[in-house]
């Protein structure tokens, strides 16, 4: 069979034999070079190749804009639906950035709540003092950013009453929290003043179990689960924005529902 791109007479077979070592060397070099660039490519996909920093920055800017939209959508007087005690999940669902076995219980007797920032009374609080404040109970739905939900029964002192007791300047923008599990968090003042926002000390009528934040945790009815820090050790009233644990990794700061 005659191919149009091949010479009519075949070349001398010795020609190939003479050049065989050179061809081998070339092929080997090709392989090494090819391997190197392939390796370089996999490294590229691992960092800035697929995800330019500018895209990430733009998305975070939109998220910050959405935080503003969420603040506008938030109605400070709208109460979340409440449910009968028969629907309460016991025990509640545990979720953190670590497993439940790694929870480090807090000693309630030694525990103190530090308060700071734009407030009149900066004396720390003991658990006995906090338990002496007016109490409120609510059965509300907990919604996680992952998509699951359950109904929980929480009691404690409404945060607005506590803020009043420490003489907080409620014109400040933020209420910032520090916790024993190194999970900083912050919420807007409007949510802090919402009647269903509690500094919770009890679940289903019992003292908070360790995995759920003993002795003190935040429980808001109008924010996603990750906006409810547990094992609170310090509260600061401030105009300084301090993003929390998950927010630094890209989750929305407002996290309103």
């Amino acid at each position, binding site marked *: 069979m005659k191919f149009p791109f091949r010479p009519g007479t075949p070349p001398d077979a010795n020609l190939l034999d003479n050049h065989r070592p050179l061809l081998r060397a070339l092929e080997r070099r090709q392989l090494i070079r090819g391997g190197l660039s392939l390796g370089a490519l996999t490294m590229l996909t691992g960092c800035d190749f697929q*995800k330019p920093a500018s895209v990430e920055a733009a998305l975070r800017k939109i998220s910050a804009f959405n935080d503003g939209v969420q603040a506008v959508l938030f109605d400070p007087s*709208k109460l*979340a639906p409440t449910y009968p005690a028969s629907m309460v999940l016991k025990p509640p669902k545990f979720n953190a950035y670590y497993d439940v076995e790694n929870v480090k219980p807090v000693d309630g007797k030694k525990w103190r709540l530090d308060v700071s920032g734009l407030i009149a009374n900066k004396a720390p609080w003991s658990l006995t003092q906090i338990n002496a404040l007016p109490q409120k109970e609510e059965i509300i739905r907990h919604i996680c950013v992952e*998509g699951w*939900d359950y109904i929980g029964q929480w009691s404690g002192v409404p945060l607005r009453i506590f803020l009043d007791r420490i003489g907080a300047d409620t014109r400040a923008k933020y209420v910032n929290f520090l916790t024993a599990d190194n999970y900083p968090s912050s919420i807007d003042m409007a949510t802090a003043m919402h009647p269903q926002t509690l500094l919770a000390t009890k679940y289903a009528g019992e003292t908070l179990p360790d995995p759920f934040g003993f002795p003190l945790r935040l429980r808001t009815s109008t924010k996603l689960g990750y906006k409810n820090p547990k094992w609170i050790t310090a509260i600061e009233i401030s105009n300084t924005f301090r993003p929390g644990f998950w927010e630094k990794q890209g989750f*929305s700061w407002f996290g309103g*529902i």
Partner: protein
Amino acid sequence: MHWVNAIAMLIMITSGWGIYNDYVIIGGLHFSKSLRLGDWAAESLLWHFAGMWFLAINGLAYLLYGAVTGRFRERLLPIKMSDVLKTIDETLHFKIAHSDITHYNAVQKLLYLVVIAAGMSQVVTGIAIWKPIQFSWLVSLFGGFQGARLVHFLGMAVIVGFLVVHVALSLLVPSTLWAMLTGGPRVTGPTARAEAET
């Protein structure tokens, strides 16, 4: 409008799959990493809540345009059951003619209406899932938070199903592709003629 929607839809679908994975609706159904937009939920959520503006604003503009110009009434209505059956019958006999691309057959009309409704439903259920307390009345319409999530998921399935058929058919009838890119030929239907006379 079509292409803003196409890109926004793809962003919403693929980032939605990334969010879905954290708490699956259908046991065993996970979306693999290559299909997802965003390496993990936080990134997918950033994409989803950015894409929503493009989808919703573009979609709203499209609905207003379609309603005000009468395009919906002219192109998508009326749909007669007998026409639908006729088109199905013709298609099954491989009579797939689309010579006048400004005129939709009954099945096309029906599918376009379904996908427009699904798109609107996605926005409504999306708001319900995003703000289940602020719009608690909306959530109760869907039988609770998980109900809204389920309807949002099913809406996605309808849109993805439409997309598969839509893309496959447009590739089968290549003349439509040029129209999608350029906006299509000038319509000289009864409305256009009536406008020319006045």
